[in-house]
Every structure is written in structure tokens, then in C-alpha cells.
């Protein structure tokens, strides 16, 4: 038991040191990298490791006779969660969201310290001491609070009331509801029934099962499936169309959506809303191929108002590409990210 707890304590100390190091820039902030798409799981498991570490620490402190009072345990844990959210997570979480997490974790800590009568007494004892006790230390502390509290609360309300120039928050719908049909280059496409004419098997029939077998493999790197190289001279049908789509992508789209389709192209840094990240499971992986066709053909200017058509720099690709080229680019995007288009049923 003790050995186990020592390991836990060690993990806790190491984790804390690393976090503190990252905050002060001693440890490079990318030492343990948050990988896109896996971030929620990573954060959860990191927090779990920290909790295990703290359990170990508290156990060790106990057995060495230096037990941390319940009150301070609660306060420290709550401030740890806040520190973690503020400094570990990137891109940064806005204050309002952190405040929400703050309240939730406060409630959780409160429930923990008030789980039974004895714990609750232990927890509130230090608070009562400051209010009532007549020892010199507590008297000094009481006076300190008397002076500091008004200053802090006054100062805080001054800072909140002072006019600031934070950018206004505007909420944009990233995937607005599509129309029933869309007209591109004089032809009307019904989104529910249209199919990508290049998603075909070797007989030339629409065959998603066939193309699904030839997309890149999921997992780190997302590499092409063995023996499915679109650049092979003998590649035909689906794989040949993938290559043609890739050529169009790298002549038109990568400037914003990036060489790895992760939305980090050459010009992406300048734009807001930022270009879509196709490798994120929340974009094309969740959408039907015809939805993408509509979005690509009509671009930012063709968005409904909730999508902020005035701000998006996504070109209406019908101005630059033929319908066939658009379908091929979509084919390439699914191939390169290793996702299946969602089907309507």
C-alpha cells in the first residue's frame, strides 16, 4: 500500500512540477502534446493521473504526521483545477467558461468536504477560527481579512466596470442546415439523392464499400493503405480520381485548409472564421458528401445568415472549378483524412 501510494505521490509531484514549469516557461509547453481529436480524452486522463498523484501525496503526508487539513486540501484542489484549465489547455478557454467550470468544481469540492458530519466540521473549523478565536495569530488574520476583503472586492468591481476593449463575442453556426437542393453550373442537385459520380468501383458503379477499403488508414500519420497508391501508374477508377482530386486540392484549397487538410494552410492565420479542419472528427466525417458539395460549390457567400456569409473567405468554387472537379476534390478529402462520408440513412 505504502509503495503504491509513494508511486502515486511521485506522479503527483512530477505532474505538478511540469505544470508549474510550463506556466513559468521553464518547461516547453509542448512537452506533453495535446493531440487534436484526442484532446478531451487526454485531458481527462491527465486529470485522473493528477488525482491519483494527490491521493498518494496526501497519504504520504498523513503517514509522516504532516497531514494537510481538510480545509486546505479543498482550497488547493480547487485552485489546481483552475490553474490547469487556464494554463494547460490550448487554445485558451474564455474566462466565462472557466468561471462555469470554477462553479462546478466548487460544488464538487463542497460535496466532498461535506460528505459526512465529521469531515464537514473539520472543514469549517479553520473558517470559524478566523471568525471567533482569540489567539494572536487568528486575531491578526482577522484584522488582515477585515482590511483586505473590502480592497479586493472594491478593486475587482473597479476592474469589471472599467470599459475594456475586448472583442465582442459572436456565435456562428459552423454547419448550418443545408437546402433541399442546389443548382450548380445550370444543373440542379437534390442533396438527399445525389451521389459522387467518382465514388465508383472498377465496373464504374457507385460503391462506397469499395472506396472505403482504399482510403488512408486511421491512426497516427493517416497513411495510404498498402497497395492503394493513387500515384501508381496502374491506378485506375477511384484511385485515379483521388489523385486528380488531390491535384486540384493542391492547386486551390491547401492555401487555407493546409497540406494535411487540418485547416492550417499558408493564409489560414489571417482569417476568421478559421478554415475547417477536415481531420477533425467533427467536420466532414459527420457530414454527407452532398452537403460538402453544396458548401464547396456555394462557398462562404452562399451560407445562410447563421453561418456569417459576410465574414467567410471560402470561395464559391463554382466560380473556379467545374462540377466534376468539385466532386473529385471531395473524393480526395475523404480519401486523405481516412473518413467515410455519412450516409442519409
Amino acid at each position: 500500500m505504502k509503495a503504491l501510494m509513494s508511486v502515486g505521490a511521485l506522479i503527483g509531484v512530477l505532474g505538478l512540477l511540469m505544470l508549474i514549469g510550463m506556466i513559468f516557461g521553464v518547461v516547453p509547453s509542448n512537452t506533453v502534446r495535446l493531440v487534436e481529436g484526442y484532446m478531451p480524452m487526454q485531458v481527462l486522463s491527465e486529470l485522473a493521473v493528477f488525482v491519483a498523484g494527490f491521493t498518494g501525496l496526501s497519504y504520504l503526508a498523513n503517514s509522516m504526521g504532516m497531514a494537510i487539513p481538510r480545509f486546505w486540501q479543498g482550497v488547493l484542489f480547487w485552485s489546481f483545477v483552475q490553474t490547469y484549465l487556464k494554463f494547460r489547455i490550448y487554445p485558451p478557454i474564455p474566462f466565462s467558461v472557466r468561471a462555469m467550470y470554477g462553479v462546478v468544481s466548487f460544488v464538487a469540492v463542497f460535496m466532498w468536504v461535506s460528505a459526512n458530519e465529521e469531515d464537514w466540521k473539520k472543514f469549517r473549523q479553520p473558517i470559524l477560527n478566523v471568525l471567533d478565536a482569540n489567539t494572536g495569530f487568528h486575531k491578526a488574520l482577522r484584522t488582515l481579512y477585515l482590511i483586505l476583503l473590502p480592497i479586493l472586492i472594491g478593486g475587482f468591481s473597479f476592474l469589471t466596470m472599467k470599459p475594456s476593449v475586448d472583442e465582442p463575442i459572436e456565435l456562428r453556426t459552423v454547419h448550418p442546415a443545408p437546402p433541399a437542393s442546389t443548382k450548380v453550373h445550370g444543373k440542379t442537385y437534390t442533396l438527399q439523392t445525389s451521389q459522387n459520380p467518382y465514388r465508383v468501383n472498377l465496373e464504374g458503379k457507385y460503391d462506397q464499400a469499395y472506396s472505403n477499403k482504399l482510403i488512408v488508414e486511421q491512426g497516427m500519420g493517416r497513411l495510404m493503405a498498402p497497395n492503394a497508391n493513387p500515384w501508381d501508374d496502374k491506378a485506375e477508377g477511384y484511385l485515379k480520381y483521388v489523385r486528380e482530386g488531390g491535384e486540384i486540392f493542391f492547386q486551390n484549397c491547401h492555401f487555407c485548409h493546409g497540406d494535411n487538410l487540418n485547416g492550417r494552410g499558408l493564409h489560414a492565420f489571417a482569417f476568421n472564421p478559421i478554415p475547417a479542419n477536415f481531420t477533425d472528427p467533427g467536420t466532414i466525417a459527420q457530414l454527407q458528401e452532398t452537403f460538402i458539395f453544396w458548401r464547396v460549390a456555394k462557398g462562404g457567400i452562399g451560407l445562410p445568415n447563421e453561418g456569417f456569409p459576410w465574414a467567410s473567405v471560402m470561395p464559391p468554387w463554382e466560380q473556379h472549378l467545374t462540377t466534376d472537379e468539385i466532386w473529385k476534390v471531395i473524393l480526395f478529402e475523404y480519401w486523405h483524412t481516412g473518413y467515410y462520408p455519412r450516409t442519409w440513412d
Partner: protein
Amino acid sequence: MSKLRVNVKASPIIGAALGAILLSASAVGIGQAADLPEGFAKGDLAPAPPADMIEAGKRVYFTKCVWCHGVDGAGDGPGADRLWPRPRNFNQGTFKIRHTASGELPLFNYNEKTPDSGKNDLFDTVTHGLPGSAMPPWEGILTEEQRIQVLSFVTTQLVKDRKFTDKQSETQTILQLGTIKPAEATEDSIKKGAQLIVDKKCIECHGVEGRGDGNAFNLKDDWGFSIQPANWHKCWNFRGSRQDPYNVRNIFRTFSTGVNGTPMPSFADSTSVEERWNIANFVNSLCEKDEEGKPLGIDPLTDKPKINFVVPSAPVEGEISSDPENEMWKKQGRRYVAMGGQITHKPRNFVNRIDDIWVKSLYNEKSVVYLIQWDDRTKSIAEGKLPWAPTQVNVENFGVKEQAPKTGEEGSIAAAQNNYAVYNDAIAFQFPIKWQEIPAPFKPRYLFGDAKFNADILKWEADGSLRSFKGTGWDQDFEERDDFEEKVKLLKSEWKNGQWTVMISRPLKGSKDDYDDYTRFDIGKYIPMVFFAWDGHNGDAGRKMAVSAFYYTILQPPIPQEVYIYPAVIAVGVVFLEGWMLTRRANKKKGKVL
């Protein structure tokens, strides 16, 4: 129309630099082997990667790299022709960012998987990418193993003219960057560096202030493609910055080893290590800093400075100075505005040469003034009269065309770079007309407004004109507004050492206090603003330009009195609350009940 620029075959600078190296080759560094430049040591060639690694690398290459670097690694993939700088041609084994002496192959060792070890140049390039070019950082996308694999494939199969393992023809003279102690960036060191960049003729290419504006259009790389000297003020765009732009070691390394395949020579033989540190410290000191002189915050997702989308305008009493060095301007913080190429409508601007501008703003009771500064290597003013009217937006018929997707190297952007017709440099910004009546978050479209919501556009061109337009859509010609043009004022426009400084004043409101035709500025309100910039030597005109996202400008109100009063009242309230609570507890202890 406009004059075409003539290519100059061999740059005299390269010749001079090479000459300098040859002459000083005999100078021997202190404590070094007789034939090695100071700070370098002989190294061994790395072993050849195993065949299975090369085979695995091929799979990575044909998934990720082939699209730009091409099937044979000749830098001619489908994406190549619309890129500038062009993707690397691997065939000759010419690589830019190295720890090895000028002309040598870079370090590559398939056994060395620690990033930034200084022992694996190519691995670090793939890991961190080449900022300022289309080469992204592959860390987090490809595993370390996969990065090593693809490099094994590239160095053995696609580098065709040289061999990484050939002891007969290849040597490795390695900069000992890990063990050389950097000279501290003291004032003295920086001062010496400032003198050295003149003595060593750095300024002939990089310009007097280091904005890359010296000889900007006569430099070519080994393949004959136009190339431009680095702008020292934007260290985040340094190819060799390794995603750590303010680290002086990167500059020291580039300066010691040179950039193979480009006119940038190695100065290892002509400078001592100490001199190189002085130069590196000086160059590093030029990179843009914040108001407190600290490095700008770099966004790890984009490797560019972090963006704040609000451009605040501060109130001043009386006349606003037209001198950017005036105290009132120096006090006001500047904002970084990121600029991307206009790639939405034809003619698209794939190669955007103005990637940021810096904006400050002040206002008084009558007008609001914008001070805009941006780096542009060339001062461009069209010769003679432009064939289109200033209001004309659709200028495709006058030769302003976007690059064809596949042209062959002859017609690529890099090849055409010296041959564009020269138009006017220009800057413009737009506000919504009658923004008070537009419900948030609606805005006139970022590109010159739309039919429903019109844009108020103010455009300055390098020929000295400042014009006011009404924009009603991306493909609609502007409407000129002469009555407003009388009221806007150009306070300053100057191009100096690779930087434009333009100061534009416009009234806060019209004489009748209405806002029918132009934007009325109300204090404390967020007004959407979009910036546009044109580089005349890049052939920018019409929609071929740089464009920003939506920013907000706000006239900062003077702080109202309540802000001071209420917190004081709250603090007093808290004191009373404390008194009440303690009295209550004291009474309770004594057993009294109130």
C-alpha cells in the same frame, strides 16, 4: 502601360560574397584545426538507412509529400506552380537549413530521433516545417518514426546527384552550436553587430533597416527562380526559426552555415564566432516586439503573432500630430493585423507579399486618424496613367490575372516574379455604411460590401491619391464619393527602407450629423473594419491583393466617473457587512440574542 522589369543574370552581390569567402579562407580560427572555420568540427557521414525504412518512407511520401514535391522529388508536384517560394527540388541535394558548412549536405541520421538535437537537420525541418513557406510542421501529424522513414526515402531515392554515404565526395563540417556559448545580447554586442552588418555588406541585400529591401528583385536561387532576402523584423517567417523565432541561436546558425542554393553565403570564414554572435544579437534585436520590448506572443497553431481583433482609438485633446514619432502616437499601442491573400474571387492572389500591417489610431472631437505601417520591399508607383479608372474593380481584362494552375516551371509564380507589370502600392479599409441600423452580427460582406449593406471604403494609392468609395459588392465597380473626399485627409505617406507609413484622417461625422453616405463614428461602439493592401511590384491590382479578417475599431470613451464611485461604495458596504457579522458572532458567543 507599365514597364516590365529586366532580369539581371548573375547578381554582383553573390560574386562579392563568394570573393570575400575565398579571400578570407586562409584566416584561421583560434583553437581550431587549421583548415576549419571557427566553431566548426569535422564529423563522420551517417550510416545508410535500412531498406525497409526506405520502403516505409515511400508510403509516407506518396501520401503526404508528393503533392508539392513531385513524383521524382524535383519540386514540381501539382501544387508547385502556384507556390512561392517553390517546393524544394530534392534531386541536387541542396538544402537550406543545416549545421554543416556551406555547400555540404545537411545532417541526416536515421538513428537520431530527438528533435532539436542539432544532429539531424532534415528531421528538424520536417518536424518544425519552414515558417513563411507552405511547408507545415509535421510534428503531431507524422510520428517521429514516420518522419525518419520519409527522410530515408528522400535522401536515398530522390536526392539523385549526390550520395549521403559517399565518403569520396561528401564531407561533414559541423557547426558546434551545442557547445559554443552565446554572447549575451548586451548593448555593446548589438552595437557592434549593427556596424558589422554594414562592414560585411549584409545591408546590400537585407536593406539598411533589415527589411529585406536591398536588391530585392535581382536575386535568384540555384534554379533561376526569383528569391528575396529575409525581413529581419519578422523573425517568425525565418525558414530556419524552428518554431522558436526569437532564439538567437537560429540566426547564428544560418549566418554561420549560409543558405545553400540561395545567394546567402556562409560567413564562417570571414567572421569570428564573436562577430557572428554580435550580428545575430543585432538581427534578433530587430524582430518586432511589444510595447514593453518583450517578444510578441506567438500562436502555436499558426506560428505567427497572436491576433487581437480590436483596434482601439484613444482620445486626445486638440490637433492630432502627423508625426508618428510624436509622444501621443508613441503612447498609443499598435495592433498587429494579419493579412492573407484574397483567394475568394478571381483574380486570386496566391502569393501574398504583405502578410501583416500594424495599425494605431487616435481621435479628437472632429476626426479619427489611422496610422498604418507595413513592410513592402519595393516602393511601387505605376508609370504613366493606369488603363483603368480608380473606381474599377474588375480589372481582369487589363492583364491582372491569376496564375494558371499548371504552367510548367517557365510560367510559375516564381519564374514570373520579376516580370509583373508594376502597379501602385496601396492600402484601403472599409466600414459599414449606417452600421447603426444593421442588427448584430450582420455586416456588409468583407469584400467591398454587398447589395443590401454597403461598405464605406477609403483607399490610398502610392501615386498620392486618397479616395472615398461606396462598395456594393465584390464584383461591382466602386461609386466615387467626391463630397466626402474633400473631408478626408492624408496626413502622411512615406516609403523608407522597406516600410510604408501612411496616416489617414477622416471626420467622425458629417456636417449634418446624419450618416446617409458615410460611416458615423459613435464613441464606445464596436465598428467592423476590414483592411486591404496591394503590392505594386507583385502585380497587385483590383481584387488581386491582401485582405484581413473583420477587425473592430472602437473609440475608447474617457473613463466615466461611476467607475470610480461604485467600487468605493461597494467596498464601504463590505466593511459594514464585516462589522455586522463579527458583532453578531461576538454576541452569540456571549450568549446574547439580538
